[in-house]
């Protein structure tokens, strides 16, 4: 493992790795769920957390050059004095880095209205897999030719290592209101989400938590969530004061029409912060219930949310696994949490079986394998469930264009055998 402090050191690490015929794996703070930064075999792990300087903030243009190890929340804290923030806000934002966010095209609750990482990255200086340094994208809004920047964002370290990133900063909204809507069950909460979108309203964020999550969160931080609700929606609206007030009334009306038992509007900034603290510490709160959890990250069309959620509960019940749901409901990004104690015999098998059935159900509903954590190692062998052999062949060729010799994070994202004519895994004992 190495902790370079500059672009030159990253490039040197890549060249040294190649000289010794060793692949390399880029790593930020390791918060990704899909194992994209997990070393397989004996690669050189290049950790970018020591490159943590904010290099330049151009407040007038609303942009900043940062090193990849800058923390997501640290960036927004540093720009707060200018009335600007970095919009993508993963739940792990206290720990995760901008470089890692670029690798996974990370999301977060506020990506509903603002878009995910790719919409906020204007340029990336990268060390390409051959050790050369290039800038993809740029300070000018468009670049001649192919969108190499767009191609790199979300490539999970398989196309090189980001060493400097030009991000877009957005103005802080003059008004923000946060509503907590309680429902008797998750299905009615999901129907409310569809109702909000169908009414032509795109709030800043719509997050859902089921009763098991809200109970855990209440025990953990006392966020003020109702304990008698089957599910709650956290809806945030931001913008100018007049519109925020109008949309707040409209959302409350849609919630009530969908059977909300209560709608509470955060009275002040402190209450708003507490409501969000509950959402963002949900995963920590789980530790009070069981020592292990398996968190999924899939996206389904918003119109299929209700039926997929119903299937998630059915599947978990059939496998005798506790499932809890906390997720980005506004964009259909589900995060079913399978909560268990791995020390109990047979548990892992049941959890894995439930997990793959949940993924199957999401894919069957027209969903995708990942919303914000990527494919990594975890979902690599499921890629052929959503893509044809030809689709994967072209993705493999695109990857090879960046990394012809296969040094950058091999064995991630694409299953072996993706290239047409490439042999699949050879069965044990085969004579070759």
């Amino acid at each position, binding site marked *: 493992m190495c902790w370079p402090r500059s672009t030159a050191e990253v490039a040197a690490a890549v060249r040294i790795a190649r000289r010794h015929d060793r692949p390399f794996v880029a790593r930020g703070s390791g918060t990704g769920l899909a194992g994209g930064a997990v070393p397989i075999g004996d690669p050189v792990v290049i950790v970018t957390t020591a490159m943590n300087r904010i290099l330049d903030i151009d407040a007038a*243009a609303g942009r900043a050059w940062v090193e990849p190890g800058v923390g997501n929340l640290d960036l927004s804290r540093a720009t707060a004095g200018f009335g600007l923030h970095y919009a993508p806000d993963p739940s792990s934002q206290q720990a995760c880095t901008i470089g890692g966010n670029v690798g996974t095209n990370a999301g977060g609750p506020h990506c509903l209205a603002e*878009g*995910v990482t790719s919409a906020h990255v204007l340029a990336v200086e990268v060390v390409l897999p051959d050790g050369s340094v*290039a*800038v*993809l994208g*740029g*300070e*000018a*809004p*468009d*670049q*001649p*030719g*192919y*969108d*190499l920047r*767009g*191609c790199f964002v*979300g490539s999970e370290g398989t196309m090189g290592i980001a060493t400097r990133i030009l991000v877009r900063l957005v*103005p802080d909204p003059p008004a923000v209101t946060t509503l907590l809507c309680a429902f008797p069950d998750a299905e009615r909460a999901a129907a409310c989400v*569809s109702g909000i*979108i*169908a009414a*032509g*309203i*795109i709030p800043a964020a719509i997050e859902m938590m089921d009763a098991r999550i809200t109970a855990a969160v209440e025990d953990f931080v006392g966020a003020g969530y109702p304990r008698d609700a089957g599910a709650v929606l956290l809806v945030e609206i931001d*913008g*100018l004061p*007049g*519109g925020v007030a*109008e949309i707040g009334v409209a959302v409350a009306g849609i919630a009530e029409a969908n059977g909300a038992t209560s709608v509470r509007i955060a009275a002040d900034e402190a209450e708003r912060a507490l409501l969000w603290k509950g959402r963002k510490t949900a995963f920590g709160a789980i530790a009070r219930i069981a020592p292990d959890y398996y968190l999924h990250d899939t*996206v389904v*069309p*918003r119109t299929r949310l209700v039926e997929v959620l119903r299937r998630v509960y059915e599947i978990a019940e059939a496998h005798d696994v506790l499932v809890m749901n906390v997720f*980005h409901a506004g964009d*259909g*990004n589900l995060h079913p949490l399978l909560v268990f104690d791995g020390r109990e015999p047979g548990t892992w098998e049941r959890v894995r079986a439930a997990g793959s059935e949940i993924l199957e159900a999401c894919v069957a509903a*027209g969903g*995708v394998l*990942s*919303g914000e*954590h*990527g494919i990594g190692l975890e979902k690599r062998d499921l*890629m052929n469930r*959503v*893509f044809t052999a*030809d*689709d*994967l*062949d*072209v*993705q493999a*060729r*695109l*990857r*090879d*264009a960046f990394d012809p010799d296969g040094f950058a994070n091999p064995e991630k*994202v*694409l299953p072996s055998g993706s290239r047409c004519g490439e042999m699949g895994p050879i069965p044990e004992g085969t004579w070759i």
Partner: protein
Amino acid sequence: MDLRSVAGAVAPVGARTQWEIGGPPPSAAAEVRAPDGITVWEPDDLTVTVGAGTAFADLAAELATRGQEVVLDPVDERATVGGILACGCSGPRRLRLGPVRDQVLQVWLALADGRTVRGGGPTVKNVTGYDLPRLVVGSLGTLGVIERVTLRCRPRPEASQWFTGGRAAESFRPASRLTDGGAETVLLEGRRVDLEAQARDLGLVPVAGPPSIPRGSHRGRVSVDPGRLPALLEVLPADVRFRAEPGIGTVLVASDDAAAVLAVRDSAALLSGWMLREAGLPGDDGFGTALPVASLAARIKAAFDPGNRMNPGRLPVAPPPPTVAS
């Protein structure tokens, strides 16, 4: 669409509204059109899948029946969806709503070898494999024929109005800012109550529309760091008409004098920017500059189109190395 049924070079054709963009169109290429019509529209999911040959005007009219729109905003509404994406030219609302590349969720691309491959997905959020949808935006048909796409829709705003005067530049997150050298105009979109409040507080005056798109037999699209935009506008030749986007860094320029437009390209280059040819400028390669990371661009081209059949000449991308006979 099976491109094996076509021999030699292939030129994807939309409505020819930007036919001269980039490098010269290939001579003697077979013209290929993508299918048109809406395949699936999920109004409650705010997504629509369309044949890339669909005219923007037709798609916009259909989406408007349910109060929705797609943010492609072409100069000419006869343009096809595939043509807009292949050219990669964003409309004036990019400032608030993002460039065209952010509007594409899924793409079906017909390759020269006869296969049609799909990238991206039907959902609004997705990190499942590499971002083919963004890669094809601006690729000028040199990777394959954009056959079908899934686009993000949005609800049309309750109110939308161009303003000028007062403290227009201080308005909160305008959809667009445009200037042709005169007073800046801003487009405000959102709730009526917010537009009225901003107009009152900032002393804005409503206007019928933005400055018009500059006309001339030679046209280009400049892209510079928005911080350097004032420096560029200062040195524009007198016989160049323009419309610039403060906050973005794009300038549409036009003149009947080719040399004047080429002078703009030189100025842009001195400011670390560049200019895409949109029309005229005979003999021009379309870009006036090598592609960034040219060797990588060439390898990407070769990965999709090893035989260099797709729109040869439109991008100054090096042809793939000759294949060694085995």
